[in-house]
């Protein structure tokens, strides 16, 4: 692990938290869309 100052660690933790939340939301949304697409596929058949 590289040497980071306490201020840098605190800043990166905030960035990581925001990025992790946004990324998780995106993945969940894609999973939801996938599920909707598949169920619509079944109904259209």
């Amino acid at each position, binding site marked *: *692990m*590289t040497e980071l100052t306490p201020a840098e660690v605190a800043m*990166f933790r905030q*960035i*990581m938290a925001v990025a*992790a939340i946004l*990324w998780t939301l995106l993945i969940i949304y894609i999973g939801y869309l*996938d599920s909707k*697409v*598949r169920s619509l596929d079944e109904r259209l058949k």
Partner: protein
Amino acid sequence: MKFQRKQAVILLAVLWAVVLYAMYQVLFSLGPLSEELLRFEGDPMRHGYKIFFFSMQAAAITYIAFAVVLVGSVVYLRTKNLKWDTIASSSAKVGIVFTTILLVNGAIFSNVGWGAYWNWDPRQTTSLFLWFILAAYLSLRTAVDNIETRARLSAVLGIFGFVGVPLTHISSTIWVSNHPQLYNTAQSSGFSLDKSGLTLFMILMTSFLILYIYMLWLTYKIETQNQIYQNILRGEQ
């Protein structure tokens, strides 16, 4: 080979974990920019350069999305097969998402590096130009009702719109630009990645590429289902 639900869930879970791991490594394990590359004492680029790991991927996927629009448009005009028009429009829809990410990343990088979110840098401006091309493409599609006319007009715009991609790529070399040069040119900023940095870069690039392909497939399926539904409403099926 069908893309089953279980495979989709596994793919999403792996993508989620891999990108989070790579983000963590970029932030906490990658070293700062070397001292000789810093412009002054306390230069925010010391760690700010790490944004490159995300803006580069967004730029690459934007270029790929434009290329898919180009190919889909050309093949549609040659074959008149609407499937290719659907591929092109799906790529435009996904591409505008990545272009937006590119613009936001670029603005953050610009603020860290040069003190303003927007300073009309050639690379920033031409990236915005790319966003406008995709927005125009999607707007055109909503304005035309006839399916064949819409496909033909979109295809022409998709082909000419691709001009923005090489223009954006060379903008920072042909015009005076703050944007760092990534290749060995006379203007090279000297920034290069070590082995761990390169590994993380390739992991993120691969992950975002897989994400683009998955979103393209999903958007294509949605568009196809929409067309089937419209045909049912018109009584053609």
